[in-house]
């Protein structure tokens, strides 16, 4: 009986060890396969750092859109057209289309529906944006501040 029990215990330990090794081996592989692989398009310097943008990009244009439409205040540093201009894929000239495209890829990953492109163009605009677009910061009162 004692022999049997020790055999059982040792096999259990072995199985646990085996699982631990397997888990360790698989973790980086999971990390790679689950995160979205994004085509950032032209990319380059964003208006804020990527970490801030990942969490707060929607707040930057939530108030700005009312200022543009209702008061006609144009030329903000933060504009949806600017997002699209930099991040449209060079493959299909859009931020949507496949799960590699910048907006769609991340939103599919996060399971959040994007409403923007039901009305707005997902393709880069035809003419360059207003040259001096750093003049105002209309989002200052409403957008969450970056942690110092």
């Amino acid at each position, binding site marked *: 009986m004692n022999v049997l029990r020790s055999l059982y215990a040792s096999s259990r330990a072995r199985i646990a060890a085996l699982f631990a090794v397997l888990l360790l081996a698989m973790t980086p592989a999971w990390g790679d396969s689950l995160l979205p692989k994004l085509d950032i398009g032209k990319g380059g310097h964003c208006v804020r750092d990527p970490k801030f943008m990942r969490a707060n990009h929607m707040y930057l244009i939530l108030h700005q859109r009312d200022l543009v439409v209702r*008061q006609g*205040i144009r030329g903000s540093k933060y504009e949806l057209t600017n997002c699209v201009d930099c991040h449209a894929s060079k493959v299909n000239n859009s931020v949507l289309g496949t799960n590699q495209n910048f907006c769609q890829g991340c939103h599919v990953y996060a399971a959040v529906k994007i409403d923007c492109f*039901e*009305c*707005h*163009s997902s393709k880069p605009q*035809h003419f360059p944006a207003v040259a*001096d677009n750093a*003049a105002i910061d209309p989002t200052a009162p409403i957008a969450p501040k970056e942690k110092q």
Partner: protein
Amino acid sequence: MSDINHGRRQFLAQGSALAAGIAIAPGMLLFDFAHARPAGVPASSAVRWGMLIDTTQCESGCDACVTACRKENGWPEPKTAQDVQWIRKVEIKQISTGKQINLPMMCQHCAEPPCVDVCPTAASFKRADGIVLVDKHRCIGCRYCMMACPYQARSFVHEPVVDHSSEMPRGQGTVESCTLCVDRVDRGEQPACVESCAKEGHKALVFGDLNNPNSEISQRIRSVASIKLREDLGLDTAFSFVGL
């Protein structure tokens, strides 16, 4: 006081006089020239955009303004009465005399817009410079504004929009109408219809600032007889017609 200081004072005085001469009020200049509103500056009520339509210059069968509007704002060619139509050509014939009149019909950008009065979500609004717009972020597609408009200027987007224009967002389930090409106006350009009419050599459409007595439109309205459509409704439209 040294001579240098004296000269500087004189220079400053001249400079400020010059600045005061050009700018009558913030956002309003003495000279009427096309200029884009700078970034960060809201539309000003010192300006009121309007249009004068000379029906005697509007040619029968020409639809350059309609085509230009469709191309600029990305709405498809209307096939049924339900389809989107921001601007349309109207032909009127007086039966007794046989006199024929052509004119383009679109949003008249009223000073007292009934569409704004009835909108339950404040999506219909009048911008400070008199342009009547739909804020599609707020529009719930109830279409009260379409019923309220005496000019039948507004349309409802029944179908999903596929090929969006970057400058003029459009979407299914919202109401839309002529925006006076608000993005072009903000860049200091003329609306697409006005530009196309001039390109065709017809000059039936004059666009400009009604508040500026020196603008071409104000001078024309002063010198030529014009009427506003359904003036009895007291909506004070920004559009006037010659030859009606």
